[in-house]
């Protein structure tokens, strides 16, 4: 009885030690990956800040109107800092995933290969998002200025419609690219976009039909007399 108890204890202890000896290097590998990841991420962040500062990235972002949406999203730091932080966390997370993969837990098996496989989609989605935000800013600005110069009282509404139209389109493209609820996104986008176009058509048809008529008449040359009457200005600019 006592021999059995002793053998069982020794076998249990030996198995436990063996398990620990097996896991310890993996834990060490995880810690090493985390430390290397931290160092690499810190280096990448520092390098990114230096390069972006040298290329006056913040001024470029200001010029392209990127700072405004960042501020609206509650991000007060310059775009170069934001980008360097994103890169910091990307590099660190990559190393962290490598570490987790090295531990070889059944729950996280093939984690890194799955992430690497999904990375092109994420990058494509990020690019689409960036281009979408840039386009939205550019065209919103253009629409606002054109509407103000035409003395259209609803200038800001026009600009907002342009902004949200482009952003809506962009978000739909991003979600489709990421494969998140693809069918729902496409359906929702089609319904929303169709609804907006229908509302606008209805609005144009009912609300501003007189304006449309005048515009068409002017285009056809019939409104010239009326235009002359309206033009009571002797001013020329050049």
């Amino acid at each position, binding site marked *: 009885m006592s021999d059995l108890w002793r053998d069982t204890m020794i076998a249990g202890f030996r198995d436990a030690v063996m398990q620990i000896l097996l896991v310890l290097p993996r834990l060490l590998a995880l810690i090493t990956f985390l430390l290397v990841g931290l160092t690499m991420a810190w280096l990448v962040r520092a390098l990114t800040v230096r390069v972006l500062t040298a290329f006056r990235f913040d001024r470029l972002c200001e*010029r392209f109107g990127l700072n405004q949406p960042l501020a609206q999203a509650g991000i007060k730091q310059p775009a170069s800092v934001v980008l360097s932080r994103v890169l910091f966390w990307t590099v660190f997370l990559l190393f962290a995933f490598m570490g987790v993969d090295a531990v070889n837990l059944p729950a996280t098996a093939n984690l890194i290969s799955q992430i690497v496989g999904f990375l092109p989609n994420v990058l494509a989605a990020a690019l689409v998002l960036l281009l979408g935000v840039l386009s939205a800013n550019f065209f919103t600005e253009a629409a606002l200025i054109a509407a103000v110069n035409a003395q259209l009282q609803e200038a800001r509404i026009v600009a907002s419609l342009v902004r949200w139209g482009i952003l809506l389109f962009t978000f739909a493209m991003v979600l489709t690219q990421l494969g998140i609820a693809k069918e729902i996104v496409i359906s929702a986008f089609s319904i929303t976009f169709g609804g907006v176009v229908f509302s606008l058509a209805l609005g144009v048809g009912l609300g501003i039909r007189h304006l449309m008529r005048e515009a068409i008449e002017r285009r056809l040359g019939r409104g010239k007399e009326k235009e002359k009457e309206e033009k009571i200005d002797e001013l020329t600019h050049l």
Partner: protein
Amino acid sequence: MKAPNQRFTVIPMTDPSVIQEPAEDLSNQAVTADVVVGLLTLNNAGTIEQVVKGIIEGLQRFFSDASVMIVNYDGGSQDGTPEIVERLAAGQVAIRIVPGAVGHYASLGTDSGLLGRSDDVRRLCETAQSLQAKVCLIIEGNLRSLSPQWIELLGRPVYHDGMDFVVPLFRRHRYEGTLVNNLLYPLMRALYGKRLRYPSGGGYGLSGRLARELIKNPFWSQDAARISFDGWMTTVALAEGYQVCHAFLGVKEQDSKLGTADLAHVLAAAVGAVFHSMENYEPAWERTHESIDVPLYGAVEYAPLTGPVNIARMVSGVRQGVRDLLPLWEVILSPETLGQILTLGIQESDEFHFPENLWVQVVYEFALAYHDQVLHREHLLKSLTPLYLGQTASFVLDTQRGGTEQVEAAVESLCRRFEAMKPYLTDRWRWRDE
């Protein structure tokens, strides 16, 4: 190669008298001309007969001792304009028809309304160089009021008096050219130190020297030359220290100008050309501290004001700008300037006043913002439109009870303010470059 006993010298051409080939090929032939007239046309059948007759008569009357040539740069007319030019000039004066090499099409973005016009003028300058011309005249084909005297007034200062660039003045009423009076002229005068009005097209006189300078100018292909060729040519003449003068040509009537369709477009093109050239000629304008008069040929006359000026609409434009464009102006203007702009939004139409100092500050800060590229440049320039309308409204309100003299006095006062406040621009420009 002049025929000695001819009163009016026609350059002997090989055969035929009308040659449809690129004018650059002239360099291969032993042909010279003292005066080259570049006629820029595009579907001008309605006006071209009077223009060509006026040019020929002007050349015969005022340049009888010179060898001359007309070079017609046509942008692809569909109404037979080149054929009319050819018919009218045949046997009278050497003529070359040069079809547009680049695809011309109407554009609201250029002050002539024609893209590719600068290329035509470049080829004209090259032709003038090949022909060793002393005088190079640029005439637009859509003029209805060209008289032979125009040729004299544009050509004589160059041919006899050693001028390099002749800018025409026309008979206008006091509120014609408000962008010139309130922005372009005061700014150019403060920058380059010559009291030369910003050109409004129609015709120019250039010396062979300036034509050669324009050809070799490295900035020809840039936006400034492409969008507002007239402004760019004037800037080159001023910044490079050429002799410039005015010639009063009388009434200017022309077929509708495409480029004046939209104020924001016109403003962006003309002001953009000046701002763009500021970067190229920084040393020239930084060392200029005062301005001098330029010679004037002819006596300036003004036309009476025949109709009302819609001030309420202009003031409404400023108000809307203050309401809607503030986020953009925050990026462009300093907080101090912006604070003063805000007060414009609450003024009554009848008592609207845009202080001179504030307007000068606005223009200089827009120039600095253009230099720094804080916004897309076209957006930046177009966002100046409501403020320009405000300045114009204030200008009209301040001068409407007086006559032309009061308008001229107001323009002079504004110009002096631009000159006095120039350190505001130069200091900040240098500081931002450091």
